[in-house]
C-alpha cells in the first residue's frame, strides 16, 4: 500500500509567483526612464549620486542585518536598493558624497532597521533620509545646478542665477514662485516642466512624462492601485485650480503644480509604499487626499517651496489609524441585529 503525504495549510492556496524581490525590482525598473532623463540633463553627476545612494543603502542594510544576527544576504532582496535609488532621485544633482552616504545611513539604519527592518518601519525610509538631509544641510540641499544646455544663462525664470564654484545654479520652479511669483510665473513654460529637460530640480523629479510612464507601468502590472496617486494628484489639482481662479497673478495654474516639483514621483512611487501606506481602498483614498492637501498647503502658504516629502511622512503617521477604521465589510455580510 502506498503512503501519501498531504500538506495541510490555510488559504490562499494559489500563488502568482510574485515575491518581495520581484516587486521591488519592478518598481526600480519603473523609475529607470526618470533616471535616464536625469543623466541626459545633469550628466555624470546624476550617475554618481544614484550609484552612491544605492550602493551605500545596500551596504548599510547588510551591516544592520549582521548586527542584528540575521542573514546578511537579505540585503539583496531589492528593498534596500529601491530605498537607496529613491533617495538618490530626491537629491539635487550637486550634493557632495558625504551627504549622500549620510542620507543612506539615516534612511536604512535610523528609519528602517532600528524599527525592525523590512515591513516594520512606520515612515518611508527614503523620504526620512531626504528630510533629515534637508533640515541638516539646508544650503547644499537647495542648491540646484542648471541642466545641460542652459549653463550660460545669467537670468533664469526671471530671477538672477548664482555661480557656485563650477556650476551655475538657479531656483527650482516652485522656489521661484515662492520668492517672486509675479516675476517668475510668465517665464516658466508648462511643456518644459512636462519634459523636464530645461528645469533645475531634484534628479528624479524634473521630468513629469518619464515618471508618468513608470507610474502607468506600475498600474498596468497591478503593483500599485490607483487610489493613492489619483486622489493625491486630484486634490492638488482642484485646490490649485480654485486659488488660480481667485488670483492668477500670484497662484500658478493647476498644471504647473502637477508637473513641477515632486508631486508625481511622490504620489506614484513613495506614497504607495506597501509598508507605510494603508491597505484598504477607503483608507488609501483618505491617505491620498491628505497627502495632496498637505502638499498644496505647504507649497502655497508654508515656509518651504515643496511639501510633498513632509506631506507623505505626516500621512505615514496616520496609516495605523486609517487601517483600523477603514476595514471594508466582507461581501454579503450584514450588520448584526439583536433578535427582537
Amino acid at each position, binding site marked *: 500500500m502506498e503512503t501519501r503525504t498531504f500538506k495541510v495549510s490555510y488559504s490562499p492556496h494559489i500563488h502568482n509567483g510574485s515575491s518581495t524581490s520581484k516587486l521591488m525590482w519592478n518598481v526600480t525598473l519603473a523609475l529607470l526612464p526618470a533616471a535616464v532623463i536625469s543623466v541626459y540633463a545633469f550628466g555624470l553627476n546624476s550617475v554618481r549620486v544614484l550609484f552612491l545612494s544605492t550602493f551605500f543603502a545596500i551596504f548599510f542594510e547588510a551591516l544592520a542585518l549582521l548586527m542584528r544576527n540575521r542573514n546578511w544576504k537579505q540585503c539583496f532582496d531589492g528593498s534596500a536598493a529601491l530605498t537607496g535609488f529613491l533617495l538618490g532621485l530626491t537629491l539635487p544633482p550637486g550634493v557632495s558624497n*558625504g551627504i549622500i552616504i*549620510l542620507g543612506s545611513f539615516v534612511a536604512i539604519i*535610523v528609519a528602517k532597521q532600528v524599527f525592525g527592518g523590512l515591513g516594520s518601519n512606520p515612515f518611508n525610509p527614503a523620504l526620512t533620509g531626504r528630510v533629515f538631509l534637508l*533640515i*541638516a544641510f*539646508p*544650503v547644499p540641499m537647495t542648491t540646484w545646478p542648471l541642466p545641460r544646455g542652459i549653463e550660460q544663462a545669467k537670468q533664469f525664470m526671471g530671477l538672477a542665477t548664482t555661480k557656485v564654484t563650477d556650476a551655475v545654479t538657479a531656483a527650482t520652479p516652485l522656489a521661484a514662485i515662492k520668492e517672486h511669483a509675479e516675476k517668475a510665473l510668465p517665464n516658466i513654460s508648462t511643456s518644459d516642466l512636462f519634459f523636464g529637460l530645461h528645469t533645475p530640480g531634484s534628479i528624479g523629479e524634473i521630468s513629469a512624462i518619464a515618471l508618468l510612464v513608470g507610474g502607468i507601468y506600475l498600474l498596468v502590472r497591478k503593483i500599485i492601485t490607483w487610489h493613492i496617486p489619483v486622489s493625491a494628484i486630484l486634490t492638488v489639482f482642484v485646490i490649485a485650480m480654485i486659488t488660480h481662479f481667485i488670483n492668477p497673478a500670484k497662484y500658478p495654474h493647476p498644471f504647473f503644480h502637477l508637473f513641477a516639483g515632486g508631486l508625481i514621483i511622490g504620489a506614484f512611487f513613495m506614497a504607495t509604499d506597501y509598508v507605510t501606506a494603508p491597505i484598504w481602498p477607503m483608507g488609501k483614498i483618505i491617505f491620498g487626499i491628505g497627502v495632496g492637501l498637505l502638499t498644496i498647503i505647504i507649497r502655497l502658504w508654508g515656509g518651504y517651496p515643496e511639501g510633498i516629502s513632509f506631506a507623505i511622512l505626516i500621512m505615514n503617521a496616520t496609516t495605523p489609524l486609517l487601517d483600523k477604521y477603514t476595514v471594508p465589510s466582507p461581501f454579503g455580510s450584514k450588520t448584526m441585529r439583536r433578535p427582537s
Partner: protein
Amino acid sequence: MRAFKEFSKGFWRENPSLVLLLGMCPTLAVTTSAFNGLGMGLATTAVLIGSNIIISLIAGFIPKKVRIPAYIVVIATLVTLVDMFMAAYSPDLHSALGLFIPLIVVNCIILGRAEAFASRNNVIYSFLDGIGMGIGFAVTLFIVGSVREVLGNGTLTVFQYKETIIQYVIYHKEAVSPALVFILAPGAFITLGFLLALKNYIDNLLKAK
C-alpha cells in the same frame, strides 16, 4: 554602605534621564550646546537638593491629602529663587535657557524624588539622593548637549560666564558643514535615542559577563 548607594544610584543604575526617563522636556529642549545642558542640569540639581532636604524635613508634619500642593509650593519657591539669581548673575545662560527655568517646577524628577524618596527617608539620605540624581541628570544633559553641539555646530562650549568662554573648535565650519538638524529639535530625539541604545547595550555586555 547605604549612604554611598543612595548617592551613586543616580549616576548609572537609576539615572533619571536614561533609565527612569524623567525630565525629558529639558533633556530635549535646552541641550543645544554642552554648556546649556550643563547649566540646566546644575540649576535642576540645586532645586533638587533644596527640595529633597526641605521635603524630608517637613514631610512628617504635612497631612497626606495636601502633600502634593505643599511640595509644589516648596519646589516653585526654590525654582523662582534660582531663576532670579540666574537672571541677576548669569544673564547669558538665563536667556539661553529661557522658559525652561520656570518649567523646572513641573520637572518630574523633582516631584518624583520628593514623593518617592525624600518624603520617606531622613535628611541625610535625601540630600545624597538629590546630589546623586542631580549629577546624573546634569552629566546626561552635558553629554547630549556635547553630541548635539559637535555634530550641529562643530564646537564644544565647556564653560561660559560673563566674559570668560572656553570653547573648543572640533572642526571648521568652512571645511565640513555641520549637520544643522542636531541643533534643532529632531536632532535631540535622535541623539537621545542612540544614547539610550548605547546605555542598554553596555548594560547587556555587563550582564553577559
